[in-house]
């Protein structure tokens, strides 16, 4: 298995810092923002972005958690369904600018599911998408508004995001599982 580290913990810190500044720059009315992290790793990223914004501007932005598994478009074709976890968004999203946060943007299907889920919960004035990694290969007309890093990848590679909150370490790596057979 060949593994290449593409972001170290220091890189991740800087990247999220820059994304936070971009969000501040593009959204004058910070009080109208809601961060919604997509399970699993979008959630800690959403919290970190909100913490950064609090530190830079002093505005506390509510952070919600979204589980979109019931909205997946491949549910009926999977032999094993995903585990459904709780969604919890602490404020009404009506009229708010929702920043949807995920770790990796790939086919765009998760983002599509998440947007459907959000719209069932209210009518945000707009939804924006923030992702730490954009690895390409979109299958739907979806693009991110805030991108941490573009990582050109091939479809048979895996991009692996690890975060302290979920994995004990901050690191983004890219590896080719095709080489795993030797292990």
């Amino acid at each position, binding site marked *: 298995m060949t593994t290449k580290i593409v972001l170290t913990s220091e890189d991740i810190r800087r990247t999220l810092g820059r994304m936070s500044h971009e969000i501040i720059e593009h959204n004058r009315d910070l009080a109208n923002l809601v961060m919604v992290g997509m399970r699993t790793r979008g959630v800690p990223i959403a919290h970190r972005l909100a913490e950064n914004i609090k530190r830079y501007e002093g505005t506390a932005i509510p952070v919600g958690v979204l589980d979109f598994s019931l909205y997946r478009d491949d549910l009926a074709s999977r032999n094993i369904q995903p*585990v*459904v976890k*709780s969604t919890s968004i602490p404020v009404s999203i009506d009229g708010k600018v929702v920043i949807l946060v995920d770790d990796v943007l790939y086919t765009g299907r998760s983002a599509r599911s998440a947007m459907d889920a959000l719209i069932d919960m209210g009518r945000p004035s707009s939804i924006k998408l923030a992702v730490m990694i954009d690895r390409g290969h979109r299958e739907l007309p979806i693009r991110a508004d805030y991108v941490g890093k573009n990582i050109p990848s091939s479809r048979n590679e895996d991009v692996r995001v690890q975060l302290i909150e979920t994995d004990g370490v901050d690191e983004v790596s890219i590896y080719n599982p095709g080489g795993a057979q030797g292990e």
Partner: protein
Amino acid sequence: MSNMEKERSELLTEESEQINWTKKHLLDIDDFSKAEFDLVLKTASAMKEILSRPIKKVPALRGKTIATLFYEPSTRTRGSFELAAKNLSADVINLTPASSSIVKGESLIDTLHTLQAMGVNAVVIRHSMAGAPYLAAKHARASIINAGDGWHAHPTQALLDMYTVYEQKKRLKDLKVVILGDSRHSRVARSNILGFTGVGAKVTLCGPLTLLPPSINYKYHPYPGIEIEPDIQKALNGADVVMVLRLQKERQHSGLMPDIREYKNHYQLNRQRFALAKPDAMLMHPGPVNENVEIEPELIRCPASVIDRQVANGIAVRMALLYLVIGGKNDEI
């Protein structure tokens, strides 16, 4: 770490994104592992959140069809299965077989074949004969869900009762659950005994000894975690949960109890007796309630009563079960 523990810890980590569910049918909970109970309870709490939304609908079961086939009357179970299916965007057909074609096994199987020809993915069955859903499962390509069969089992009721307790107490292990009343003729009691003891709670059965399950002897019985206490005061002492069963009026002439008045004197749950339970004890009843028979009317809507919440939670738990049983690919249909 044993296999089951390992399975369980994998389930509880955020990492595992795929469910570990292999049951095609839901006939009873006697073969549920702790991990399976856990998965149902956790999925139910995710479903409960959907019920709090203004639009209580998610597309998870779009394109799937669920039939309810009730050979016995029901308000709660049938209504909540129908709502659960609709909240998940499934289509529902409700069948009430003509009273003439009940009982015979053959007609049940014929009905199933008809439903399958219509492309039904799951059939929710209630039948007065114990074992009817098993017979159905043997012949069905669709998933069979037992919504109560004779005196045998009512698995979805037990799971919703467990969820209701879990939601409030945040745990089930080591809780003292008192099941009060006629557990002999109660599928709700039987399933709750299996469910609560299956997750490590202690179940106390209280009632006239003639109304205890025949397989459970007062002096000796082989079931761990079950205690028999015919004295209601001792039984209720220190209870975390008091589950009152409906006393079916026809039992009055069964010879198993003298009469309703005598029963009330000894076993009706009233305020004085309920006060013996823990101060934060929950009061449950599977419904429908016989007011002033098994329970004093004032207690039905007292602050400790979660009877209405049991009904609401029934929808969430049945959503979870429908999702687990038919949420994925049903390639045989």
